[in-house]
């Protein structure tokens, strides 16, 4: 692909930048999630999750990740957090539940909340993938 950027943002660890490649990969997954901003669609998905998902052209892996609520795998398969979060809202989860589930070292939601109250995940040591590979 021709690029006008060297995509150096890919060196940021644990971060899935929603560029064109990511958007193309995740289009159906994200638009399924987007549909949950209408109550009629939420009711239909609640009544028949598998049947509802058939309306969208998700890959087998994306479909599996949705049904397993694997938030990190959804991101890796092209998901964008603002879209996948609509599925979390559907489940009654907060952003902190999802943040905990995606975190590098598995955290409980209480761990995650405590980390935020203590000032959040620090930037030191979290700028570049190289810092993580030596960890």
């Amino acid at each position, binding site marked *: 692909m021709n690029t006008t*950027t060297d995509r*150096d*943002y890919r060196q*940021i*660890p*644990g*971060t*899935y*930048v*929603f*560029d*064109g490649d*990511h*958007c193309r990969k995740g*289009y159906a997954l*994200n*638009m399924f*999630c*987007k549909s*949950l*901003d*209408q*109550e009629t669609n*939420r009711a239909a998905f609640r009544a028949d999750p598998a049947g509802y998902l058939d309306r969208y052209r998700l890959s087998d892996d994306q479909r599996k990740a949705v049904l397993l609520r694997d938030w*990190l795998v959804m*991101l890796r398969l092209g998901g*964008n*957090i*603002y*879209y996948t*979060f*609509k599925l979390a*809202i*559907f489940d009654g989860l*907060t*952003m*902190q539940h*999802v*943040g*905990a589930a*995606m*975190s*590098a070292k598995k955290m409980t939601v209480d761990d*995650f909340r405590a*980390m*935020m*109250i203590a*000032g*959040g*995940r*620090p*930037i030191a040591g*979290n*700028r570049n993938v190289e810092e993580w590979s030596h960890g």
Partner: protein
Amino acid sequence: MAKFIGGVGTSHVPSIGAAIDHGKTEEPYWKPLFDGVKPARDWIEEAKPDVVIVIYNDHASRFGLDVTPTFAIGVADHFEPHDEGYGPRPVPACQGDPELAWHLTESLVLKDEFDVAIVGEMSVDHGLTVPLSLMFGQPDQWPCRVIPICVNVIQYPQPTALRCFKLGQALRRAIDSYGPDIKVAVLGTGGMSHQLQGERAGLINASYDNQWLDGMVNDPQSLTKIGHTELLREAGSEGLEIIMWLIMRGAMNESVRQVHRFYHVPASNTAYGLLVLEDA
């Protein structure tokens, strides 16, 4: 003639809206934040704008992946809150100002070559309604008319920081050339540092945020030179939305007076920042 009365920068974290909607503002978790916002509320109550132009981003609400306008202006006479999955927030619909919105559009497109998307029907999400709740509390009707200007900060490539600043400059020229005697304020929303996604979720960078607040007041030109990779890395993948504050700052004089500044961690997964500025 229309008069520009000042600019406000504020984060638009959804959980702040939920805290207001569910009467939690006096709880220990939230009280420090709402105490810190009080001087901004006092300022806007005194300043009494007739119109606020709210620079915000849509979060997969009005716009999906089927169309992503880089900059979009709402020219409708009203804007309903969007159902983001919980049902719409219990806040009033915004009354628009179509006459001013069309004037801004003509000025931006014809005089400044800012080819904004023109949106005739537009629901608005927490990105716009949370700043209104922060500034005005829970009235039956918002006390002023609202013009939404929506910016793509989700889909890479987002507009550059410099482009946002220049849009603010063009917006100010448009405001200043509007005939009716009304008072106009500009709200730049979003930020500060936060990352909602991935293994790095929960990132906060207070020193970077405070440098940004300094720059907003004293040296906005330096902020316009910052590239996306730096913002994504230092402010977090969702913290990049802080570029929207530069639209507000671009609308102001080079020299400004800081009326109020406040910074608080955390609001849910986000660093909350607030600035109230007037032209010096």
